[in-house]
């Protein structure tokens, strides 16, 4: 009897504008990015709202009304929520409505969708606190389960998250670490006492998130009954199927004309046809199922790329250098009393800035390029470093 657990990631970064060396000292509005045109913050929020957030929220709300046993969960970055407040308040309202149904769990993450865990424990914990406050304020909700940026995970993270009082944590279910074990059970992270680890079933998740509209895929077109057969086959050898994906899967990564909305709309009914199936949120899984063993994940695991590591964020010397430089000023920023300065510094920590500097697939012109607002990873780095220099001048004079 597999429980189906949906978790959707909702995130938008504050993209930085194209910023020249000649702007240093003159321009401190790094995120007022009209010069990125249709790839600027406001434009992207409006586009994604129209193509994804609003239509998908409507479908999910309908589904919850239709099937009271249908459950889902979200993780929102603080930067996405702020931009909804500013650019798309109707989107925020529709999320609030969804969460009010009681069928929706909200997860915890770093407010700035950052890689702070890998650079500064204090900053990492501070960003979780800021996020907690924001979720309380907007949704009157207190998260009990944590997921880190890009589902990055290791033993040490689980230990810290347990100490912070969380019941569960999410990670990628990659066979490299699982070996013969299945991602369809709950595990105990090595070095922890009671926190439970939920693993993404990446094959079934990615069938929807990555392959749904791929005409070269041998299972294309993916219809609901076929997908439910795959889910049902977990019966007897798993407690849960965790379908974790970016929310933009619906309407933005997989376009409306691929049939993704129809798929989503008919999925719950088909799943519920099988009497053993049900829907659970991460917290419900944790209270329902025992762990079946310990998982030792020493090196950092993420849900990204074939490598499942952080190389898309930290792989080249531009990324390493800019990350080092943004964290090496931590103490001075924290000691300054300037709240605007602190907020800017944190916005500059969002992982997307470093992702845009990734050079490993740049020649291929694939997804990584499609989502970057800059002409090249090098341009992303140049604007970032110029901004960082301006920021350091402000810091010095604060």
């Amino acid at each position, binding site marked *: 009897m597999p429980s189906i657990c949906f978790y959707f990631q909702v995130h938008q970064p504050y993209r930085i504008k194209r910023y*020249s*060396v*000649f702007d240093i000292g003159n321009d401190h509005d790094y995120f007022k990015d009209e010069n990125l045109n249709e790839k600027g913050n406001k434009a992207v929020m409006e586009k994604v709202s129209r193509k994804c957030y609003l239509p998908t929220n409507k479908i999910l709300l309908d589904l919850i009304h239709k099937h009271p046993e249908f459950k889902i969960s979200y993780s929102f970055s603080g930067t996405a929520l702020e931009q909804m407040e500013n650019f798309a308040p109707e989107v925020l309202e529709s999320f609030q409505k969804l969460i009010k149904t009681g069928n929706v769990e909200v997860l915890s993450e770093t407010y700035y969708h950052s890689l702070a865990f890998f650079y500064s424990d204090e900053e990492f914990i501070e960003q979780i606190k800021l996020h907690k406050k924001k979720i309380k304020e907007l949704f009157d909700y207190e998260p009990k389960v944590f997921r880190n940026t890009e589902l990055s995970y290791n033993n040490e993270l689980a230990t810290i998250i347990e100490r912070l009082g969380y019941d569960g944590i999410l990670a990628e279910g990659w066979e490299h670490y699982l070996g013969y074990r299945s991602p369809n059970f709950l595990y105990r992270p090595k070095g922890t006492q009671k926190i439970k680890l939920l693993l993404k079933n990446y094959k079934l998740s990615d069938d929807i998130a990555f392959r749904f509209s791929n005409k070269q895929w041998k299972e294309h077109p993916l219809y609901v009954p076929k997908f439910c057969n795959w889910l049902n086959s977990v019966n007897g050898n798993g407690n849960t199927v965790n379908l974790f994906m970016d929310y933009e899967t619906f309407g933005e990564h997989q376009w409306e004309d691929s049939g993704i909305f129809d798929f989503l709309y008919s999925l719950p009914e088909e799943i519920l046809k099988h009497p053993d199936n049900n829907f659970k949120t991460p917290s419900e899984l944790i209270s329902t199922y025992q762990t079946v063993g310990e998982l030792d994940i020493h090196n950092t695991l993420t849900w990204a790329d074939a490598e499942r590591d952080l190389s898309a964020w930290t792989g*080249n*010397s*531009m990324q*390493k*250098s800019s990350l080092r430089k943004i964290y090496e000023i931590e103490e001075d920023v924290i000691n300054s009393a300037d709240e605007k300065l602190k907020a800017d510094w944190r916005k500059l920590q969002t992982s997307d800035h470093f992702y845009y500097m990734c*050079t490993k697939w*740049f*020649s291929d012109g694939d997804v990584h390029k499609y989502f970057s607002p800059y*002409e*090249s*990873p*090098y*341009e992303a*780095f*140049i604007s970032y*470093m*110029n901004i960082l220099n301006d920021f350091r001048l402000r810091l010095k004079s604060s």
Partner: protein
Amino acid sequence: MKVLMFGWEFPPFNSGGLGTACYGITKALSEKGVEINFVLPRDYKIDEDFLNVISTRLPKIKIKEIDSLLVSYMTSENYRRRFLELTEGNIECNYCDNLIEEVHRYSKVAAEVAAEIDHDIIHVHDWMTFPAGIEAQKVSRKPFIAHVHSTEYDRSGGHGLNPYVYKIEKDGINYADNIIAVSNLTKNKITNGYDENGDKIEVVHNAINVSDFAGGKNHSHNFKNYKIVLFLGRLTLHKGPDYFLNAAKKVLEKNEEVLFIISGSGDMDYQIIEQAANLGISDKVLFTGFLRGKQLRQIYKMADLYVMPSVSEPFGITSLESLASGTPVIISKQSGASEILNHCLKVDFWDTDEMANKILAVVNHEELKTCLSDNGQNEVSNFKWSSVADKIIKIYNKLINRPLV
């Protein structure tokens, strides 16, 4: 397959990218079994036996010289100057007294050559050889390919189009059975400026033999405390040396430890030297004159950054040479190379603020320089003359096998 090819220049006696491209193309074609008779004007001053050297290196290529005053990148003015130098010395000659007539005289001789040499295809490189190709075609009736490495629009920088040159160019383009353009940019120039609809135009980007530029960077120069930014190209309007200097001025206002080297010569020599003086940066701008061979390879390796700010650049093979040497590049968006290069920085030639921004980023951030040069060097190693030859052979076969009209 036998090809009768007309060109202007061939290394080591080349003064620009055309000779480099012709060498790369013919060598790769010959390695694939294509026999080439390469006809080019012979400079009377060159008496070294360099053609034999090439012939031994490239056994399937025969070089055929025609006595003529024509040299590559020649303008009417400097043709006239050379002609007068010669005739004032009372040397007897058959040369015509102006460039255009000499090009036509040359083409008549070419027709005689065509009659003597067996061939399946006529392949000519740039305008000066177009009339020769047409004459040869009239004799042999074989398919005629015009390979366009630059157009009069590029060479004139959009100003003062030479109407005679344009006419020769246009006649050749319209007459040709097939046109090979070195970039989409060039293809667009041909369709927009020469009444061609594009059907017979194939784009074949240039390539590079990276092993010619192998070896480590050279840091053992005398400017240790300085970063070196290089301009390399003829000092003519369309190469944009004036934009380079304006950007240099802006760079130096932010960082004084940068030197700008200008390599090349041309009709803007004095203007550029004067401009540097007027900008007050003469002490930071060095002129090397025209470089070739070992010196050329060295200057690439010495530089921290190469800037190609061309106003109009059909391809820009120097950008590949620089990357092959491990030196990152900033190239003009108005260049053919920018269609195939990803791992480089691109600017609009007129945007000297942005050019300065990018120069400063490279000289100030070693990590940027490293990423650009490692990835760029890797990228150009995929641009091989042998794939260029494959594309050209495909075009040859298409033309040879086409039904007779």
